């Protein structure tokens, strides 16, 4: 199996594990799913370094979502102080 297919397969496995794991854990926070998807995506992308046809929209989207979650959490913490 070539590198590109292996990369996609690994992403599918990681996303499935995250979804099933957090569902079994009965987690109802969407940001936790998204944070773990982002972490998994960036780690696997860094490991496989796949060649992409153009700008990585999925990565940019996940990074933006992750940044928003982090900013909201920081503001939450600051508000409680």
């Amino acid at each position, binding site marked *: 199996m*070539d*590198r*590109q297919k292996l*990369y*996609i397969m690994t*992403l*599918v496995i990681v*996303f499935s594990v*995250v*979804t099933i794991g*957090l*569902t079994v854990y009965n*987690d*109802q*926070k*969407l940001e936790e*799913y*998204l944070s773990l*998807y982002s972490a998994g*995506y960036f780690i696997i992308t860094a490991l496989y370094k*796949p*060649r*992409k*046809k*153009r700008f*990585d*929209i*999925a990565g940019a*989207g*996940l990074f933006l979502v992750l940044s928003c979650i982090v900013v909201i959490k920081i503001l939450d913490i600051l508000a409680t102080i």
Partner: protein
Amino acid sequence: VFGALFAEYAFLMLLSVPLTALGISCVVLGVTTVLIPGSPIPASNIRSMIKGSCINIEALLEEFDAEGRGVYLPPRDGKVFVYVPLETSHSLSNVWQAMEAPTRVVTEVGGEPGLMVFLPLSDDMLSSIGGDMKAEEALSDILVKKLEFLESVKEAESGDKVVVRMSGSRVGTDLPRFKKVLGSLPTSIAGCVLAFVFNKPLALIEEEASGRVITATFEVQTKNG
């Protein structure tokens, strides 16, 4: 698309966080799959390798001082090759005899010396051309989709003439003898593809290049021609 709709439905109607997350993960996977190119080797690398391998052909043609235009022969054992007569006053009736000649670089057809040139187009690539594919489809599949030599290709047939108009060429060959005998690189690949599709020999009659547009005219050889 499915992932986006599913995530929206799960979030607004089902009020289910895990299903919404599942939909989002489908979107991410879908976008990633679309962004990953089909071929693991970049087409630009394939183009460079093919261009590089043409230097050997140029050296061979120079060595034998080949002047005559090449004739693209139909496949033999899945391989397409080009018969290059060394005598400029060669007869095209020799072309059908060339198909029977032993497959070696230096050959003699009908008493006239000639070369058999193997172009850098693998038989795997040619065998990917489906039996029901038309010439234009096959040219587009090889030259535009697989090799990315061109942006588009059009083919027209009139009698025994085949005109191929290749637009947006991404390869330029600065190999004068190669160009003179076999045409530019896209033209020579087009000749191989047409010989494979028509299963008949084709002679390159003329080639005109204007900017990034190349127009090549081939003549399909018939047994009495």
